[in-house]
């Protein structure tokens, strides 16, 4: 249950790590939902190869925004996602507020439950600063999209060089229904000669390596806003998911783990169910208190 909408279970496949849901529909249906790879107004080619590097406790990716654009998403992909038995969330990216708004307007299809605004895109107007690093831009963007969509509106926050509690409040104040915390951390990977390994030069760090930081952010954001927090970052198993719930998340997103085995999120659903039953969620309340005392 998120902002009045029911989900089969609290585990969602994170954007960019489950394609568009076409490859593993049978898994997608068993999850709480799936978030599509980011969609932009125009098609994007993405970054040059290689796009992925393995690092200690995680991966760094520089896929970039490769996607067919909103038009082809609607004509070629959406129809194939019809009758999906779980919630479909579309991740939207753009470089201008206007692009986000246009895409949002084009996604009024019933089969879509929510839009997730991806704020980790370099913002053209502010010289390399990410949209998501500027609370004012977050506010403007969220309000602008809010006015044009009746879908559930989720804002996906970055914790790179910005306090996500601040941007979360900006999103909340502007009508967001929920926030996803966090996106990847910035990462640079050099090869043995000290040269950048990734085609995109730098990338985004995800996986277990970012889990303690992501938990910190979720805990902090959950204390700062009233809208639900979707926890994300390094969740590899049911225990990890449980910890995010204890830190104050209402639901979780699983990213990197899907790359290892496509049914990993479904395994996490089952593991989490066992743990929650065991703990009878008594712990939840305790933790919540521990957090609030802070």
């Amino acid at each position, binding site marked *: 249950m998120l902002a009045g909408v029911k989900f089969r279970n609290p585990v969602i496949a994170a954007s960019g790590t489950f394609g568009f849901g076409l490859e593993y529909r049978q898994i997608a249906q068993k999850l709480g939902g799936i978030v599509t790879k980011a969609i932009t107004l125009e098609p994007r080619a993405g970054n040059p190869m290689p796009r*992925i590097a393995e690092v200690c406790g995680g991966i760094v990716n520089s896929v970039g925004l490769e996607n067919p654009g909103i038009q082809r998403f609607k004509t070629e992909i959406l129809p194939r996602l019809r009758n999906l038995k779980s919630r479909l969330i579309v991740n939207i990216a753009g470089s201008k507020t206007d692009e986000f708004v246009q895409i949002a307007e084009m996604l009024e299809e019933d089969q879509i439950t929510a839009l997730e605004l991806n704020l980790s895109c370099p913002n053209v107007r502010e010289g390399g600063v990410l949209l998501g690093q500027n609370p004012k831009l977050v506010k403007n963007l969220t309000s602008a999209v809010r006015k044009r969509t009746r879908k559930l509106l989720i804002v996906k926050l970055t914790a790179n060089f910005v306090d996500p509690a601040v941007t979360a409040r900006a999103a909340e104040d502007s009508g967001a229904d929920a926030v996803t915390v966090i996106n990847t951390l910035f990462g640079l990977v050099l090869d043995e000669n000290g040269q950048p390994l990734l085609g995109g030069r730098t990338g985004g760090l995800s*996986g277990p390596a970012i889990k303690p930081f992501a938990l910190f952010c979720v805990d902090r954001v959950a204390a700062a806003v009233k809208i639900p927090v979707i926890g994300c970052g390094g969740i590899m198993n049911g225990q990890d998911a449980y910890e995010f719930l204890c830190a104050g998340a209402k639901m979780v997103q699983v990213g990197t783990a899907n790359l290892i085995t496509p049914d990993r999120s479904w395994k996490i659903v089952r593991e989490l169910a066992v743990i929650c039953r065991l703990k009878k969620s008594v712990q939840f309340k305790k933790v919540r208190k521990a957090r609030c005392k802070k």
Partner: protein
Amino acid sequence: MNPATSISASIIRKTKLTSEIFSLWVKPENTESNPAPGQFYGIKPPDNADLLLRRPISVADTKNDRLRFIIRVTGKGTAALSRLPAGTKIDILGPLGRPAPLVYNKNVLLCGGGVGIAPLFYLARILAPSNRITTIIGVRRAEDLILVNDFRTLGARVLISTEDGKKGIKGILTDLVPRILDKMAEPVIYACGPREMLKKIDEIAGNLPVWGFLEERMGCGTGICYCCGIRKKTGGYLRICREGPVVNLKEVDL
């Protein structure tokens, strides 16, 4: 359809083929898997937070329900796999990717650079009964040669190039290709090896289609992460793990 669930498999035989290359015969538990030539598996290195991702490894052969992988140690993942003794259980996901197209009654040319010859062996075994097969194996040092006799046992003609000149011709694989192609009627070419080699062969082949077995660093191996693209001549990328790994080289920008 790619499988969503990984399977447990036991290493039933491990052999060292060269100083850097080893062969694993594995037996998947409780499943039948019928990979086609060109397909690969994602092999999970032993549990270590440093080795999160699966390693894509082509099927080099099959026997009953067993799979053979031939692996060159190039980094920490393959090194970790090379240390596993027979009997160990490993976690594998597959078969993944689109198979190589099969042909009948053709003159087939297989070009394998280094360990790239491995997936071509499985292809050769399937094609051998109904095609005439010529194989070129190119390696740097004669001691890096693998599978030569296995190909011969299939009835294939085998040519060798070594950079040190100690076996076959002295030179690189692509030195041999023009001479061989000249003498082949309607050849069908399959090639696996470094990008430059594939590129060269494609040039030499002119209008003939070349089926290249491509490699790229992979995230998922299952088509969901978009990490393994190769640029299409018509624009955009195709995913090597999903629309590949075997592609018509005419259609991509190497």
